């Protein structure tokens, strides 16, 4: 009976509905969805049938589908009428928010877009910030957004969703140091500056380290052309460089800490050719991997700083004067004996002295070369730290024979020596020494003594003439080149002052002239007639 009654009602309502005019727009969507009891999107007779099948029943609130269209707790004719009023209408399904990308709570940049996905195409979408574009089940919201916290409310026909984000600024590349296109070393680092802190930075080569607005790319890089692509969350920048090796100091010759001379050169070796070399002292010449620094340097402590494009090296030296030969005694080319020594004089103390013959002894600025030497021609090469010289000598047996008197104007025992004449003594060889003319009482007469080769001359001095018929002594000692000495002792008597003209003798002068004469005298006694 219940079924028959409902069927009649349904038919009646269906008839009414077919003749009635309803506007869906005038009815809220919730009412329409309630009328679509079987939720098939259409309000039709099937919904009426479903109500009729539960007609008169009390339904639970959560029963689905619910034939209690008006929600009054029972299935009755009002429910049938409500459905009948909308028979033939289409009911949109409810649109639910599914997801959002990027997810809520994440960080955005000003120009990012936010895409919401719904289970059905949403309608009447509005957003609190930005612009919403609907495409099927998606709604894309584009900014630009204001930097800071973003509370974005999306509203559509069936609901509202509030999304929270943090909006950060877009990081734009500003500059690179060193700038793209230049030459860098394999060990250099490249610093990129952005207007805002970049995120998610990656580099095609090397290692990227981000610090605030800067990103530092460190190598080591491979020698050659370097194409460096930096990618960050907001962009990509490609920089081009030519990477060259880092020039490192290898060694110095002479090595630091040693002694050099004022004119020495210092050579530094590098592992690659250095560029832009400067030095604190001297002049630097670069050739290949080497730098040669020449002075002259000032004697004393030398702190030498060498700077090149990749570094600096400080070298310490003690600079000593260059030692130059001054003289040799005896000089080269002369005759020496087997026992002689040769003394070389330098302007400064020589170092590391060696000799090809004999023994070298250094004392201050002098070097003494001692033998014995072999008789014959001697070629003697002396080498010291700053030079080398060769001397030649003729070596003979040593002279052991003392010089002897071989002649002269006065001999020992002479009694008629001219008191006014220069006295000359001749020796067997060249001599030197001290010879004086003295009285018998050993008083120096004061004559001038000169040595000339193998001769000794005693020259009269005005006012110091010798007395006639007086005994004098030439005394002293002479030596030859080998230092062989000879004592000199020549005693002589000067001649009389008598001139060979007979002397006039008188009683008055007889005692003086005759008896006092040092010469024997013959007196002629005569008469003048």
């Amino acid at each position, binding site marked *: 009976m219940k079924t028959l009654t409902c069927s009649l009602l349904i038919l009646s309502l269906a008839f009414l509905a077919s003749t009635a005019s309803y506007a869906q727009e005038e009815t809220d969507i919730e009412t329409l969805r309630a009328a679509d009891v079987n939720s098939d999107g259409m309000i039709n007779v099937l919904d009426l049938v479903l109500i009729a099948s539960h007609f008169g029943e009390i339904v639970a609130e959560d029963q689905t589908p619910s034939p209690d269209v008006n929600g009054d707790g029972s299935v009755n004719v009002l429910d049938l009428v409500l459905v009948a009023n909308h028979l033939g209408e289409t009911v949109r399904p409810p649109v639910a928010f599914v997801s959002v990308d990027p997810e809520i709570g994440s960080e955005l940049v000003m120009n990012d877009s936010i895409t919401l996905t719904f289970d059905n195409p949403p309608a009447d979408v509005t957003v609190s910030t930005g612009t919403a574009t609907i495409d099927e089940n998606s709604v894309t919201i584009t900014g630009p957004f204001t930097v800071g916290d973003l509370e974005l409310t999306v509203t559509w026909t069936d609901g509202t969703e509030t999304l929270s984000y943090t909006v950060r600024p877009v990081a734009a590349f500003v500059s690179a140091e060193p700038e793209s296109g230049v030459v860098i070393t394999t060990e250099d680092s490249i610093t990129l500056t952005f207007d805002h802190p970049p995120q998610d930075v990656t580099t095609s080569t090397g290692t990227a380290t981000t610090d605030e607005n800067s990103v530092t790319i460190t190598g080591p890089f491979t020698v050659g052309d370097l194409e460096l692509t930096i990618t960050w969350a907001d962009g990509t920048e490609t920089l081009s460089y030519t990477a060259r090796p880092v020039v490192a100091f290898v060694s110095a010759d002479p090595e630091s800490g040693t002694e050099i001379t004022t004119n020495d050169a210092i050579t530094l070796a590098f592992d690659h050719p250095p560029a832009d070399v400067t030095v604190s002292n001297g002049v630097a010449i670069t050739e290949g991997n080497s730098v040669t620094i020449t002075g002259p340097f000032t004697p004393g402590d030398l702190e030498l700083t060498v700077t090149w494009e990749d570094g600096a090296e400080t070298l310490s030296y003690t600079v000593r004067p260059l030692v130059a030969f001054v003289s040799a005694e005896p000089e080269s080319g002369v005759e020496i004996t087997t026992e002689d020594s040769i003394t070389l004089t330098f302007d400064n103390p020589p170092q590391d002295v060696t000799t090809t013959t004999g023994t070298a002894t250094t004392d201050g600025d002098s070097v003494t070369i001692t033998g014995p030497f072999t008789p014959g021609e001697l070629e003697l090469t002396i080498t010291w730290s700053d030079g080398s010289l060769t001397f030649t000598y003729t070596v003979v047996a040593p002279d052991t024979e003392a010089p002897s008197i071989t002649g002269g104007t006065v001999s020992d025992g002479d009694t008629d020596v001219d008191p006014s004449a220069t006295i000359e003594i001749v020796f067997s060889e060249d001599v030197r020494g001290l010879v004086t003319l003295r009285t018998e009482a050993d008083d120096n007469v004061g004559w001038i003594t000169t040595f000339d080769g193998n001769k000794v001359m005693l020259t009269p001095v005005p006012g110091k003439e010798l007395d006639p018929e007086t005994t004098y002594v030439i005394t002293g000692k002479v030596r030859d080149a080998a230092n062989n000495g000879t004592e000199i002792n020549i005693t002589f008597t000067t001649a009389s002052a008598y001139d*060979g003209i*007979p002397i006039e003798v*008188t009683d008055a002068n007889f005692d003086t002239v005759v008896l006092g004469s040092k*010469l*024997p005298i*013959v007196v*002629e006694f005569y008469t*003048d007639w």
Partner: protein
Amino acid sequence: MVPVVAEIASENKNTFAVGKLNREENLETSRKFGIRYQPIYIIFKDGEEVGRFAGETPKNEFVQNVLKAIN
């Protein structure tokens, strides 16, 4: 004084000297040495008479007489 004596004096000046004394004008000395004849030649050495000879004497003999007396 004969010229030869002057020659002897000149030629032997380094060995002995020659003097001449006028007997008439220097009687004291003449008497002292007992001069009676002339010419007389008296040879002195170191203040002492060491010889004498008289008369005209050849040059060589004169010198020999002197040298013999003084040596």
